[in-house]
């Protein structure tokens, strides 16, 4: 599936929820299923500095695709990363670079996109894109 198709799926899923409670409960569920980063990569270098919760993101190149693993000490933050990873993991670096993130808005998590929000969603997206740029450069 392309990133766009996956994002459309996510938007579909979220459209079934009637209120924020259900959205948050689903995010918490997603957080619990996050592909967890190996302990060795939970280093200070891999921390995305948000003000409040810690987030670690790691990327591995498998053949020509990037596979992301991550963790956070806050469960809602984990849910947000899980959504991002679902959208961007197992994709080619160039496709990740080219992808937009409008779906975040569409699933009712726009408030988390504000740079003043402490969960660092913006920084997470930036980090995922930076990994993609770095590996794309390596692949030439």
């Amino acid at each position, binding site marked *: 599936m392309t990133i766009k198709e996956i994002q459309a799926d996510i938007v579909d899923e979220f459209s079934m929820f009637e209120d924020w409670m259900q959205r*948050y409960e689903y995010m*918490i569920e997603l957080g619990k299923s996050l592909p967890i980063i190996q302990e060795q990569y939970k280093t200070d270098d891999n921390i995305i500095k948000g003000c*409040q*919760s810690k987030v670690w993101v790691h990327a591995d190149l498998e053949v020509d695709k990037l596979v992301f693993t991550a963790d956070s*000490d806050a*469960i809602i*933050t984990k849910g947000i990363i899980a959504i991002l990873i679902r959208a961007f993991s197992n994709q080619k670096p160039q496709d990740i670079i080219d992808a937009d993130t409008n779906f975040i808005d569409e699933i009712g998590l726009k408030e988390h996109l504000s740079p003043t929000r*402490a*969960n660092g969603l913006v920084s997470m997206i930036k980090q995922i894109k930076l990994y993609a740029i770095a590996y794309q450069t390596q692949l030439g």
Partner: protein
Amino acid sequence: MQPSRSIMINVTNIRKDFPILNREVNGKPLVYFDNAATSQTPQQVIDVIVDYYSNYNANIHRGVHALSQEATDKYEQARQTIQRHFNAAKAHEIIFTSGTTHGINLVANGFSSLLKKGDEVIVSAMEHHSNIVPWQMLCERTGAILKVIPMSLEGELLMDVYHNDLLSEKTKIVFCNHVSNALGTVNPIKEIIDAAHKVGAAVLIDGAQAAPHIIADVQALDMDFYVVSAHKICGPTGEGVLYGKEEWLNKLPPYQGGGEMIAEVSFEKTTYADLPHKFEAGTPNICGGIAMAAGINYMNAIGFDNIASYEHELLEYATAQLLAIEGLKIYGTAKEKTAVISFNIGEIHPYDIGSILDKLGVAVRTGHHCAQPIMDFFKIPGTVRASFSFYNTKEEIDVMIAALQRAKAMLE
């Protein structure tokens, strides 16, 4: 038996003074429990701000025209109101600042010319970052040594260590908050000041968190420096004062150069203006100063004794309700504390709780509260902090408790 102390305060009427308390957040009535970060503004203060910009906005002190005279008079009256509130001996001992952080930096910067290598500076373990970083910078510049008064698990300073191990002839300045922002502990500042004076050290007390609850009498406490922010005491942001004893303010060099702070200027030499203008370079936040005094007047009309006893009632009620939640732990259980409760529920991250509470209209603060050393001490990433003001109610506390139960059910 004591009569119900809440009779002293008519919260229903008081709440009518605060337009913001009528608004909704996420479709729910706002419950504002982030008062330790900033207090809300009563209509009486908003009116003063509107009146200033509607009727006498002008630059002060040098103008000969009527508006400038009026603005100058109001600004200097505000200084006197603040002087009386803190019982300063002289109006020029009140320096207008942009807030507590500015006041601390002004003093720390001034001390860089008074300290030498090997001198010692003492700070408490429960300081806000704004009262740690300027002193670290000062020590880096001067070669002075920074020492820390440790605290107990209850969140009380270990005064024996202060008296016996830290204070000495080498101590030049001690700084400590009057009330801890993260824990609410009221520190024994009189004891801290008296002991420091015995070894000839100056003391700066950060009153940012105390000012909403306690009137500090700077003469009775023999304060050298006291700093506060207007926005914690029903005033506007970007405004505050530094109280400094005249002899200390005369010893410190000016902090910033600019207009207003000079007496005479030539390219060879500039002579500085007298107090307080020596420390008030440039056009100040004129409206801010006037509105700060209005906030103080508003609170004095209610009465700080009434405020303190009502808030204590809220604190006791909230503490009991919170402790009834399974797995909830309160950080900071000092005998003397203001209406601030820092807590966590089990292993749930404070950020998660804060996010759910926000959805339910309850505003609390989560995180390390700019006091990372305290969080490191308790080995936690942060806390949820609920802080109460005289316009809050027990019904609002009930709303928060219900919201916490809901968050707990979702997150556990």
